[in-house]
C-alpha cells in the first residue's frame, strides 16, 4: 500500500521506561552487570553481576486503563548464584562473576535457568509460593510439635493464601568439567541437553546428569606453545538439535554437526571473511576476534560481533557475510590507544529483535546501536539518566569522527571509554529492550500511540 511505512529501527521511537541500580557514580565492583537475558515469553528479565548474584525482574500484567505503556519490570527474585572459590592446587581464585544466564522454556509453574561463572554451571529453579498449609493436628502454627496426648479432635489442614514468596533453589550443579574459563552456555532445542564452552573446549551435558559431560570440541594443541587461537563463543542452532557453532579469536566461525562424529573437531562449515589487505595493521587480528555469536530466531542466519562491526552470515554461504554493519568505525584510527588501555579486548554482545529485522549492539560512552536490516538505516542512542522521563523519545546521538563538529555531535576524543555497554537484550516479542551500563540496567520501550 502506498504510504504505509515498513517497521524499522528508525521508525521505532524509543522511550525511556525504567532504570535499575544505584545512582552513585562510585560503582561497587560486585554490582557490575555481567549478563542480561529475557526468558522465552519476555515476562522475566534476568541479570547477573560480578558479585555472583542473579536478579530477576518480572513484567507487571498490562493495566488495561494504562494503554500508553506496557507493564513495568519489578524485582521478582534475587539470589546468590555463585560464590568465590579458591583453587588450592593452582593458588588462584575462581571469580563468582556470572558470565552467562540462559532460560529454559517453561514446562510447569516453575521457571528454570542456567547460570555459569568461569568454572561451574548451575540449574536454578525459581518457584512461587502463595499459599501455605494451616491447621495441622500435630504441629502448632509456629511449627512446634504438639504433645499427641493433648489432641482431642482431628481436623483437615487447609491451604490459606499468603504473601507471594519467590524461592530460588539450585537443582543441579555441573562442575569440574572445565579447565579454562567458561564463556558460553547454550540450551539445545531438544530441551534436554546443553553445551558449555571455555577457551579451548566445548562440553555437552544432559540437564539431568551432573557427574559427566561429553567433550565435543577440543582445540587445545598438544604443545601449548603452538596455541594461537581460542574459542570465544558457542551456540546451538535454534531448530536443529544436532547443529552448533563456535567462534574464535581469529575471526572464524565453525559450524559443527554432532551426527558426524562424537568429537566435532572437524567442522562441517567454516565461515571466514578474507582479510582486506589494504586495511592490515598490527591490530587486525585482535579486532577480528569475535566476541559474540547469535543465531537468528529463524535459524537461517547468524550474527557475529567483532571489535568494530556486526556481521550477518547466511548459513549457506561460508566465504563472506551477507551484511556488515559498522558499529564505531571512528575507532579504527585509535586502535593503539585502545590497545594500551585494554579496551580493544572488550567483549561486546549483540542481539536480534523478535522478527530478526533489527540487530542491536553496544558501544562506548553508554551508546548503543541498532541496525535495521530492511531499511539499512541505523541509529545511535544513549543510556543515561539524563533522559529520565518516561515516554520522552530518545534523541539520536552522533559521533563526529573528524573535522568540524556539528552541534549536538560528540567528538571521538570526548568519548568516555569507561562507560561501555557490553550487554543488551531484546524482548522476544515486543519492542522492549534491556541495556546494561556498568552497574545500571535501562529498559526502553517503543512509544505506543
Amino acid at each position, binding site marked *: 500500500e502506498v504510504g504505509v511505512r515498513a517497521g524499522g529501527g528508525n521508525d521505532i521511537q524509543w522511550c525511556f521506561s525504567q532504570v535499575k541500580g544505584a545512582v552513585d557514580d562510585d560503582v561497587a565492583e560486585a554490582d557490575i552487570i555481567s549478563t542480561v537475558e529475557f526468558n522465552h515469553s519476555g515476562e522475566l528479565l534476568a541479570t547477573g553481576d560480578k558479585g555472583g548474584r542473579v536478579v530477576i525482574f518480572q513484567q507487571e500484567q498490562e493495566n488495561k486503563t494504562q494503554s500508553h505503556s506496557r507493564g513495568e519490570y519489578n524485582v521478582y527474585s534475587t539470589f546468590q548464584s555463585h560464590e568465590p572459590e579458591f583453587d588450592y*592446587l*593452582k*593458588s*588462584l*581464585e*575462581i*571469580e563468582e562473576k556470572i558470565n552467562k544466564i540462559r532460560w529454559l522454556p517453561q514446562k510447569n509453574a516453575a521457571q528454570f535457568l542456567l547460570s555459569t561463572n*568461569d568454572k561451574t554451571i548451575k540449574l536454578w529453579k525459581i518457584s512461587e509460593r502463595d499459599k501455605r498449609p494451616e491447621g495441622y493436628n500435630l504441629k502448632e502454627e509456629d511449627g512446634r510439635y504438639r504433645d499427641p496426648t493433648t489432641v482431642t479432635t482431628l481436623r483437615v489442614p487447609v491451604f490459606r493464601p499468603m504473601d507471594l514468596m519467590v524461592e530460588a533453589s539450585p537443582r543441579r550443579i555441573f562442575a569440574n568439567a572445565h*579447565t*579454562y*574459563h567458561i564463556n558460553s552456555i547454550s540450551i539445545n532445542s531438544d530441551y534436554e541437553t546443553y553445551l558449555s564452552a571455555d*577457551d*579451548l573446549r566445548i562440553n555437552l551435558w544432559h540437564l539431568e546428569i551432573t557427574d559427566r559431560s561429553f567433550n565435543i570440541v577440543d582445540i587445545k594443541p598438544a*604443545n*601449548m*606453545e603452538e*596455541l*594461537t*587461537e*581460542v574459542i*570465544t563463543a558457542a551456540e546451538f542452532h535454534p531448530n536443529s538439535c544436532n547443529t552448533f557453532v563456535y567462534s574464535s*579469536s581469529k575471526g572464524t566461525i565453525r559450524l559443527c554437526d554432532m551426527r558426524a562424529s562424537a568429537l566435532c573437531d572437524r567442522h562441517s562449515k567454516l565461515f571466514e571473511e578474507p582479510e582486506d*589487505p*589494504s*586495511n*592490515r*595493521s*598490527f*591490530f587486525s*587480528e*585482535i579486532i577480528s*576476534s569475535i566476541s559474540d555469536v547469535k543465531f537468528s530466531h529463524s535459524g537461517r542466519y547468524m550474527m557475529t560481533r567483532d571489535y568494530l562491526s556486526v556481521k550477518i552470515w547466511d548459513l549457506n554461504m561460508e566465504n563472506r557475510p551477507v551484511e556488515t554493519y559498522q558499529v564505531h568505525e571512528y575507532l*579504527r*584510527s*585509535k*586502535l*593503539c590507544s585502545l*590497545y*594500551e588501555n*585494554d579496551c580493544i*579486548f572488550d567483549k561486546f554482545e549483540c542481539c536480534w529483535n523478535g522478527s530478526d529485522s533489527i540487530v542491536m549492539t553496544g558501544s562506548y560512552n553508554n551508546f548503543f546501536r541498532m541496525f535495521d536490516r530492511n531499511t539499512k538505516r541505523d541509529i545511535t542512542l544513549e543510556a543515561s539518566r539524563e533522559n529520565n522521563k518516561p515516554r520522552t523519545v530518545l534523541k539520536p546521538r552522533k559521533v563526529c569522527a573528524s573535522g568540524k563538529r556539528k552541534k549536538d555531535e560528540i567528538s571521538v576524543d570526548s568519548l568516555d571509554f569507561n562507560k561501555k555497554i557490553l550487554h543488551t537484550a531484546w524482548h522476544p516479542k515486543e519492542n522492549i529492550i534491556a541495556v546494561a551500563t556498568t552497574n545500571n540496567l535501562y529498559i526502553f520501550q517503543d512509544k505506543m500511540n
Partner: protein
Amino acid sequence: MFMRGLKRKCFDGEEDIEETLAGIKAIPSYNLQRQSLLDMSLVKLQLCHMLVEPNLCRSVLIANTVRQIQEEMTQDGTWQMINMQNTGQASVDRLVSTDILCRSSREQAEGKHVPGYSTFSKDFEGDQAQDSSETMSTASSVQALRNLQSNVWEMENSQENKGNFQKSLDQIFETLENKSPNSVEDLFSEVDNSYYDLDTMLTGMMSNTKMGHCDGLEPFPSPTTTTSSSNCKSDLNELDHIVEILVES
C-alpha cells in the same frame, strides 16, 4: 647471526635525495613506534601474570601481536641479537605515540615512507646509541618472549627451564609476587602436565626464575661504552655463540 643477505624492505633508489633523507628520518619513527608496541605488549603479558587468572584469549592475542612484530622485524633486518644484556627491561617510559601503527598499510604507503636500510652495518654504525639500545631491547624482548612462550603456556621439566632463563627474563618477572620455595617444589613435583596450564605456570614462573642461575651467561659490556664497530662485531660473534646455546632449536 647477522642479517646479511636477508631480504630487506624495498627502498626505491630512484627517489630523489630529499625524499630519501626524509625517508631515513621517518624510519626511526616507525621503528620506535613498533618497538614501543612490542614493549607495551610484553608489559601486558607480564601484567596478566599478576591477575587472578589471566584471560587466555587476551594473552593469546597479545602474544600473536608480539609474534607479528617479531616476524616483521626479522624481515626488516632490525632483528639483531647484538647484545643480550639486560637493557631489555620493557619500560613503559619508552612508550611513544603509536599513531602511525594505527594506520593501515595502505595509508602508510600513500603518505609515509616505508622504512628501509641500505646496509645493516651502516645503520648500526650510523646511529649506534639509539639503534643499539633499540635493538638490544628488541633482542632481549623477543628472547624473553620466546622463553615466555615456551614456558608460560605449559609447564615443562623445571630443571631444563632453569638453565635456559636469562637475566632479561628475571627482570620481566621481578615485579611478580615471590612465592616461597616450598610452594615451588610442590608445583615441580610430578603432576599431570595438562592440569597446569597457562595460569598455573605464571605463578610458578616467578620463583623459578629467581632460583634459576644464568650460569651460561657472562655479563656483557654496556653498549654505551662500545664506540668502535670492530668491538661490537667481536661481541656479536660471542653473542651469536651464546644465543645458539640458549635458544632451543
